[in-house]
């Protein structure tokens, strides 16, 4: 796995989510990218029950990524994260009296996976309770694991199909105390998706997004 950058692309004026996604697919195909299967990333929210102090309890996010089908990631927003094997989901079922699954808060991004030389581009429709809420774009440069070494190249590549929607260097890399020369891991990707999903959850429902 390489350095990943996850960003949200706004829906084009006067177009639907699906139409904007189709436009992005066309741009990638024109560049010469080849479709290579599908992907999904999902995020479930758990909140701790039995909080005696009356303070709002911390939220635990349990995420899965189709790129790592046998793993499960557990994160706290702005806090520590854990990557574990798929049995962690079974453990959360055992913990159900202490951690409740807020089923209505499940967010997932599903879509196509494109490969362009050493880049992997995943365009996903972000949905919550079966209604499309936005578009996620993940660009992975598989040949490098150090963000500082390849960010300029990634940015240039993203500009060729995202144009003005190209994001800045993700804060998950800039906020690391050791800086940009530290190798990435899967938690960096999942933290970016978590940020995007949290933003999407707070947004209002898009007009005309309907049921997928």
């Amino acid at each position: 796995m390489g350095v990943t950058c996850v960003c949200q692309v706004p829906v084009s004026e006067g177009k639907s989510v699906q139409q904007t996604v189709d436009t992005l697919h066309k741009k990638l195909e024109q560049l010469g990218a080849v479709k290579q299967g599908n992907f999904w990333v999902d995020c479930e929210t758990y909140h701790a029950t039995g909080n005696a102090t009356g303070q709002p309890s911390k939220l635990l996010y349990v995420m899965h990524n189709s790129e790592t089908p046998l793993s499960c990631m557990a994160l706290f927003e702005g806090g520590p994260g854990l990557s574990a094997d798929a049995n962690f989901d079974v453990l959360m079922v055992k913990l159900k009296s202490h951690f409740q699954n807020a089923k209505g808060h499940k967010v997932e991004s599903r879509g196509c996976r494109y490969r362009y030389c050493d880049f992997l581009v995943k365009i996903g429709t972000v949905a919550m309770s079966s209604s499309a809420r936005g578009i996620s774009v993940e660009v992975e440069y598989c040949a490098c694991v150090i963000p500082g070494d390849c960010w300029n190249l990634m940015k240039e590549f993203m500009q060729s199909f995202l144009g003005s929607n190209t994001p800045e260097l993700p804060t998950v890399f800039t906020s690391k105390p050791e800086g940009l020369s530290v190798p990435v891991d899967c938690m960096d990707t999942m933290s970016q998706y978590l940020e995007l999903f949290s933003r999407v959850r707070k947004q209002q429902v898009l007009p005309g997004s309907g049921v997928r």
Partner: protein
Amino acid sequence: MEAPPVSVMPVTGGAINMMEYLLQGSVLDQSLESLLHRLRGLCDNMEPESFADHELVYLLKGQQGNPFLLRARRSLLHPPAPWHLRYLGQPEVGDKSRLALVRNCVDVSASHSLPEVLNEMGFRMDHEFVAKGQMFRKGAMKVVVSKLSRVLVPGNTENTEPLSLSYLVELSVLAPAGQDTVSEDMRSFAEQLKPLVHLEKIDPKRLM
């Protein structure tokens, strides 16, 4: 770079319920060599695996009922290896399990941020210990002979003190629920270890 098969769904929602069948006993330090000698003869033909693990026991106190217990274990011999998190349920009661202790078991491999995340979830470390010993295998059965030591300064695994003058011997099998022949196979293997060690079903509740 090919897409992993999306149709392969990870195990979720308790679809596979693994049970741990357990028999326990102990031997005094001076009898250890004879036991190891017999185990080397009886078990599958391989050098027994030595291990040195540091186990931390975490408790989550809920509003009602017993606290939820999780065991987090890491290897002192292979520091980069992932942590091993284990949940053990209440022992099953019933005639079927009269030969061995049967408990629901969930094993999770986790990254090194496990203690931080458990603390953030509300778990608090209750106690920790170091276990050093050897592991033997016979088919699906696992025999672990270990020396348990108390950690004198929290977090410092160099400075330990043995808990007793004996070694703990555990015979266990991990199998899906409903396999009745497992405890019989375990009992016949345990017979072969007598009189060096007497393995029996020890109900943890009786010790509290």
